[in-house]
């Protein structure tokens, strides 16, 4: 039974789940924001680190049957600690799964996936380190939430082809500030301030409409962070701070009978530049000199799937403090 959890939530919750983990792993488990893997039996016995699951499985099998057989351990319902438990997605709202990826321009004008050779700070690393860093070149997930009230603002009441719906600023700012940062591909800990969003506009244009469906085209643009300056966009530790200027393009479909959105495919694509820093904002491996394409792909997902209930930016405490859903 595999569980993916946020370290801080697991560590700080004051309820039966927190006590279960403390009993199994001892005080001060998951002490930092780093990743941890652990194996535990349902009765609370610690089976070992998750880095050797075969050893943990062997320990589990050696446990007495009365402690591990199906139905042997009774687990009551949880009364969760509301102060730290992850917030649920907004009722009757939308959950958009986002994938972010650093991209490269191919010689034929197409975009492609990056390799370690595209990053000067990575290229000089040893092969084993490079292999580990390669995962940062893959798609990085995130989730955006749209409330029921937000959703209503996106539905044209008397739709006609060509009609334009301007996406409310609160929604566009939420997408831009909290999700459209190139640093999202390797970090949960960064968002733009309101003042760093210089442009953020998104509109939906009705393309097709009948009694049952409305299909809309999404288009717009944004600019966050610094203004590109080729003389300063150097690596490592150049003078130019992070900047990103994507264009939006997408297709949104609404089912008029079901009264709900059935598709929300959106791409934010544009160049990013400047400092891709670590916790101290020193240049990290993914920084490149000049400007390079960065893409974000949004899609509608089913929030009843546990894997789609991760909070935006992956950090429950941060979500509470930032007024993420504020209007």
């Amino acid at each position: 039974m595999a569980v993916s959890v946020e370290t801080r939530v697991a560590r700080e919750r004051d309820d039966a789940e927190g006590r279960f983990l403390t009993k199994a792993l001892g005080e001060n488990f998951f002490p930092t924001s780093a990743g941890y893997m652990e194996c535990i039996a349902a009765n609370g016995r610690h089976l070992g680190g998750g880095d050797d699951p075969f050893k943990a499985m062997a320990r589990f099998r050696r446990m007495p049957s009365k402690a591990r057989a199906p139905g042997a351990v009774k687990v009551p319902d949880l009364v969760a600690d509301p102060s730290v438990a992850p917030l649920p997605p907004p009722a009757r709202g939308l959950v958009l799964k986002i994938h972010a990826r650093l991209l490269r321009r191919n010689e034929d004008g197409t975009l492609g996936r990056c390799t370690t050779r595209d990053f000067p700070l990575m290229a000089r690393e040893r092969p084993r380190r490079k292999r580990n860093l390669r995962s940062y070149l893959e798609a990085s997930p995130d989730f955006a939430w749209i409330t029921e009230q937000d959703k209503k603002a996106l539905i044209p009441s008397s739709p006609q082809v060509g009609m334009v719906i301007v996406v409310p600023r609160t929604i566009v700012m939420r997408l831009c500030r909290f999700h459209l940062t190139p640093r999202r591909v390797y970090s949960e800990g960064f968002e733009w301030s309101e003042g760093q969003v210089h442009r953020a506009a998104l509109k939906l244009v009705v393309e097709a409409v009948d009694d049952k469906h409305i299909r809309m085209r999404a288009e717009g643009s944004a600019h966050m962070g610094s203004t590109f300056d080729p003389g300063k966009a150097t690596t490592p530790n150049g003078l130019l701070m992070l900047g990103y200027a994507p264009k939006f393009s997408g297709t949104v479909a609404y089912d008029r009978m079901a009264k709900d959105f059935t598709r929300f495919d959106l791409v934010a694509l544009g160049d990013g530049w400047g400092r891709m820093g670590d916790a101290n904002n020193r240049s990290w491996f993914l920084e490149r000199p000049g400007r390079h394409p960065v893409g974000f792909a949004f899609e509608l997902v089913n929030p009843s799937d546990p894997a789609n209930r991760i909070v935006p930016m992956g950090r429950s405490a941060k979500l509470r403090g930032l007024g993420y859903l504020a209007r």
Partner: protein
Amino acid sequence: MCVFGTMSVMRSLVLRGFSVWSLLAVVGVAQGLQDVHALIQPHPGESHWMRVPWRTSVWEARKQAAKEGKPIFIWAGSGGGPIGVC
């Protein structure tokens, strides 16, 4: 704006639910929206751990593990663990 040459391409894209509006028109990229959307998303061979049917509640996993007689594997991270951010 239509940037494709033939009605058949347009019809094909419309039927697939995608706009015939190409990213070519806005960011100078020689790929359509669907191509770029797919390019950004995970590709075969990437992020193998995403194929695991993860749960996001230790307690719910504990209940299920007790019911099925299985151990619990926990992967914790600051951005929500392996299926979260970062």
